[in-house]
């Protein structure tokens, strides 16, 4: 299947082409738009499968296939782009196309009543194309470019219902917060380009992730004693932190739930947010450069600073997200904070355990989280747009398929032992964290987070599906209900129905994967990990007696059962009676509950500090411009105009008047002199006579007579 490598570009290009054509279609070509999107995704899926088979069947050391080409030149060099096919790419491609395809199918049912159906599929296809571009990129620049387009489509899709101010604001927030991370990404990228001379990852030995470049990068140190590779890694991690909702750049994710539920499922659960994790996995050689090589199951002796940063941030995020999810009442927000928490786990896994550990959880998470979101969408659809879990309940009777699949996903997320994929992937992470050489704190944070995960998911399931339905009772007398409706075309309130097949079939498929996918990565047969690492493995139960395997399995199972038990005790034991009833946990610990439900007031903190600072700075700059710089110019101009007035005054009053006065003087003098002219001829002659006498006297005076 080597033919697939030069044609790998089709995988992202086909959905993008579908998006381009859909953009030109009118509002009524719904079927065409959907067909284009789904068709292109299906073909991409088949091509991805082909790529996977190609990588599977290529034995030997070289399992990285690249195709590089020139793009533009500057100076004496050409900037090259390219795509790569290696195990990491292959698994990501298959996951993205498969989950994407299922969500596209689901969207046909979910968005059926929306006016802007065509536009929705156009954006979805564009997103899929860009995400696939991120996956196959062999150049950090190409990855960045597709990364930004992914951010654009996320913006467009979150703000899909643009007439809602909250949606428009949430879209802007998402773009801005991720852009903050992208600033670090850009700086890291240009730094890497400067240091290694290329942005291609793999390029016959001279790529920036290959050994010659890495040795060069490790050899130099920069500020704070970091190696250049770690510094660049941390900068690029900023971008990943933004995209993957790590603390403190997580604030956009919960607000992003303003978008339609398929968007939340695809973008904010399975794929886009995973792009950050994928990025770190992709540049893992850079992040780990300088530290002794590590494998999936043995902790590194002394991990690089970059990986330590990743781990700590991931661990904090994992705990943070789980804590907040405990106190939320919007069905999608619980899942959003859960996603934040799980992304933290993935980052932690990458930091402590390496690519295989983090990626395994990414893949399993993609399936069960999108399942949970689609299930939530089904619930919302069935409850005619209601999203507050206090107003749901009793759906296990009315929406059976949704209930069963949702429970499967929930158990996978909690990490219910043995039969659910989340268990195996989370255990991998916890096991690596346990043996992390720097500190054990991430392990404890992760373990506590696992407990909380089980707790809040149980809470959610009992609120939504357990007991009796609370929606019917209160829908008539609560006008505020209308404000919570997501879907503007809401059905009659008491119409609790299961969703149509086009929505439930993807749920079932995803549930199957949520269960079965775990089995490709168990310690007994770590096929997934070995596929990514390039090692060989066989099926052997003896692996269970390996280092820490059984203790971690036991303790994590214990934590899960504790969480489930607590959840049942507080929420399942006595069914929730009414929408106004206080939350069971909230009744016990109201202050902590309130603090958690406001998400540690992080948003408010940002609003009070950063946003206010920004607004103040912008007003200051504007004020400066208007009054200081402009004022300086105005002052100079007033000064010059003042001189002009002075000059004018001088001209008019001094010079001109002076001249005028002079002329007046001459004139007056003339007038006076003219008095001598009496007009009398004889007086003239008298004067001549006198003058004559005077002259004669004068002449005689001097002469001797």
């Amino acid at each position: 299947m080597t033919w697939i490598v030069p044609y790998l570009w089709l995988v992202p290009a086909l959905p993008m082409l579908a998006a381009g054509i859909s953009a030109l279609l009118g509002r009524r070509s719904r079927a065409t738009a959907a067909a284009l999107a789904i068709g292109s995704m299906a073909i991409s899926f088949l091509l991805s499968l082909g790529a996977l088979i190609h990588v599977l069947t290529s034995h030997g050391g070289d399992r990285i296939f690249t195709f590089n080409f020139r793009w533009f030149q500057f100076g004496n060099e050409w900037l090259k782009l390219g795509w790569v096919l290696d195990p990491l790419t292959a698994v990501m491609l298959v996951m993205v196309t498969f989950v994407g395809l299922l969500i596209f199918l689901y969207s046909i049912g979910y968005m059926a009543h929306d006016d802007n159906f065509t536009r929705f599929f156009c954006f979805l296809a564009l997103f899929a194309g860009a995400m696939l571009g991120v996956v196959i990129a062999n150049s950090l620049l190409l990855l960045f470019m597709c990364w930004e387009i992914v951010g654009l489509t996320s913006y467009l899709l979150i703000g899909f219902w643009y007439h809602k101010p909250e949606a428009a604001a949430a879209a802007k927030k998402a773009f801005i917060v991720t852009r903050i991370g992208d600033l670090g990404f850009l700086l890291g990228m240009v730094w890497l380009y400067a240091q290694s001379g290329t942005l291609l990852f793999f390029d016959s030995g001279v790529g920036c992730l290959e050994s010659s470049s890495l040795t060069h990068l490790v050899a130099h140190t920069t500020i704070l004693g970091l190696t250049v590779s770690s510094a660049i890694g941390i900068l690029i991690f900023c971008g990943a932190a933004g995209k993957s909702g790590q603390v403190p750049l997580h604030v956009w994710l919960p607000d992003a739930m303003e978008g339609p539920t398929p968007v939340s499922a695809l973008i904010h659960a399975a794929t886009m947010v995973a792009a950050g994790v994928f990025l770190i996995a992709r540049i893992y050689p850079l992040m780990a450069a300088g530290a002794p090589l590590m494998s999936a199951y043995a902790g590194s002796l002394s991990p690089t600073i970059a990986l330590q940063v990743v781990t700590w941030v991931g661990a904090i995020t994992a705990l943070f997200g789980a804590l907040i999810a405990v106190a939320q009442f919007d069905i999608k927000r619980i899942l959003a904070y859960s996603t934040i928490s799980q992304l933290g786990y993935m980052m932690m896994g990458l930091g402590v355990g390496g690519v295989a550990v983090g990626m395994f959880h990414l893949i399993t998470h993609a399936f069960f989280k999108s399942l949970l979101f689609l299930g939530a969408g089904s619930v919302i659809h069935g409850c005619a747009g209601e999203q507050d879990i206090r107003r749901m309940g009793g759906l296990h009777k009315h929406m059976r398929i949704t209930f069963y699949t949702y429970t499967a996903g929930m158990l996978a997320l909690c990490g219910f032992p043995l039969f659910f994929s989340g268990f195996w992937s989370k255990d991998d992470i916890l096991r690596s964290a346990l043996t992390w050489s720097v500190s054990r704190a991430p392990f404890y944070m992760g373990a506590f987070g696992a407990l909380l995960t089980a707790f809040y998911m149980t809470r959610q399931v009992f609120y939504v599906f357990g007991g009796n339905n609370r929606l019917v009772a209160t829908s008539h007398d609560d006008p505020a209900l209308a404000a919570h409706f997501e879907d503007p075309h809401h059905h009659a309130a008491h119409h609790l129905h299961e969703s149509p097949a086009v929505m439930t079939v993807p749920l079932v498929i995803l549930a199957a994967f949520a269960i079965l996918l775990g089995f490709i990565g168990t310690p007994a047969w770590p096929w997934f990990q070995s596929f990514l690492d390039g090692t060989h493995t066989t099926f052997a139960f003896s692996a269970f007696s390996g280092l820490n395997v059984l203790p971690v399995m036991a303790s994590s199972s214990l934590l899960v059962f504790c969480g489930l038990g607590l959840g049942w005790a507080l929420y399942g034991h006595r069914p929730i009676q009414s929408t106004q009833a206080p939350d069971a946990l909230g009744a016990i610990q109201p202050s902590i509950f309130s603090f958690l439900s406001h998400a540690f007031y992080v948003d408010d903190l940002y609003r009070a500090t950063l946003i206010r600072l920004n607004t103040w700075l912008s007003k200051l700059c504007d004020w400066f411009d208007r009054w200081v710089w402009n004022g300086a110019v105005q002052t100079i101009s007033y000064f010059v105009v003042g001189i002009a007035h002075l000059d004018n005054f001088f001209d008019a009053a001094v010079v001109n008047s002076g001249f005028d006065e002079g002329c007046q003087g001459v004139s007056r003098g003339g007038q006076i002199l003219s008095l001598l002219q009496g007009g009398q001829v004889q007086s003239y002659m008298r004067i001549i006579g006198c003058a004559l006498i005077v002259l004669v006297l004068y002449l005689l005076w001097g002469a001797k007579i």
Partner: protein
Amino acid sequence: MTAFPWISFLTALPLVGALVLLASGRVGKIFVRFTALAFSLAALAITLFLWLRFDSSSGGLQFQERLSWIPSLGVDYRVAIDGLGLLMLLLTSIVVPIAIIASCRIQEKVPLYYSLVLMLQTCLYGAFTALNFFHWFIFWELSLIPAFFLIRLWGGPRRSSAATQFLVYTMVGSVAMLLSFLAIFLATHKFDFIDLAAMAHSGQLMPAVIDKLDWRRFTPNHLALIVFSGAFVGFAVKVPLFPFHTWLPSAYSEAPTGTTILLTGAMSKMGVYGFLRILLPIFGAQMQEVLTPLLWLAVATIVFSAYAALAQKDLKRIFAYSSINHLGYCLLAIFAVAKFTGSDPSLTTQKYAAMNGVFLQMFSHGLTAATLFWFVAMLEKRSSGLRGLDDFGGLRKVAPVFTGLMGIALFSSLGLPGLNGFIGEFLIFKGSFPLVSWATSLAVIGLLLTALFVLGILQCVFSGPLNQKWIGFPDLTAGERIVLAPVIGLMFLLGLYPQLVLGVVNNTVIQLVQQIKF
């Protein structure tokens, strides 16, 4: 002179059009508009012809015309284009038709308006191709006059003060530049840019200046810096560089939108062109001496103008500040290139990247800014002159195509990959970061702030509930879509295939960077 003088012909063509329009007497407005458009499109055709005939493998001066004019003053009529000049010609040729089409709201003294626009086009062509200070300065100064009248006669409520400030401020800078060049002339008896650059390259220029203008009060170094600062002020005001930028927001917002397109699309590039063609080759050594303050100014330009844009409520003022911000990146790269001399290959490749980025950013910013103001013009046409951020709301519902296309232009301004704004900025950052790391790191704040106000525009004007006032807001007509399509298409084309431009200018860039050694 055996070859046909294409450049002089191109320069004279819009002037002929202007005279035709002035002499046209009582003809209909439609006829006037079409004639103006026809002349500008003819100029575009000739420019495209030059583009295709240009030999991009050499990168030197081509289509040169040289006539001896006033030998005793060292003045020749010398015009030629290399990659830089050709790029600027092409930009002007694209921006002027856009400006003409966007001026459809002008109803009084229409022939005069369009003839002033065409005169401005001639002056721009002249300034971008002249190689002798004498006629270059003539065109540089002459371009202010049509611009002044365009703002003064057809502008907004505060047009008088804006136009006067624009004219006087720019002219003050030009006077300083004139003094510097006269000083140089007195010393070297040359006005030719290429000769002066060669003298600077061989290190003879400043000693000659210091020798001939022996002011005992100043040290030689200070004298050289004074001469440099005169020329620097002239260009710094034009670009504009902080803090000489305060004329720009009022000039752009008070000018009629068609004129703003010209101001931002082409005239602002005259400043950057001046930096590249004149300041850097001739005064490179002086630039290197004062580099740190210059870098601070460039970073201030980028960051403060973006912050100020965030605080504006008038769409045109936002885009005006955004222009300052984008050109700040160009200046950052130019200063970065001036930092190191010598031929260290790793540094040279960064300089090539930065310089290519400047070229591409100039071109793509001209295109994007012109398109954005064009959209503002269309908005004003539909709203009878309103263009505040808070005047609209939810327009996407009634005008989706308008939203989509303006959104593309806005995202191009933001630097989204796949559109024309990204590669220029990326190359600038890529080239500048190794050379001036801290300045570049601070400059990325500008990217964030640009995203903030661009998305703010999208949110306030197009999203949210539909403002009931605009229920009848018409979407783009078929005619508007047809004329917008090539421009939007060009944005995508440049974003996906920048080699189209870079292939032509690359050798010029190499030569330009090689020349800056002192």
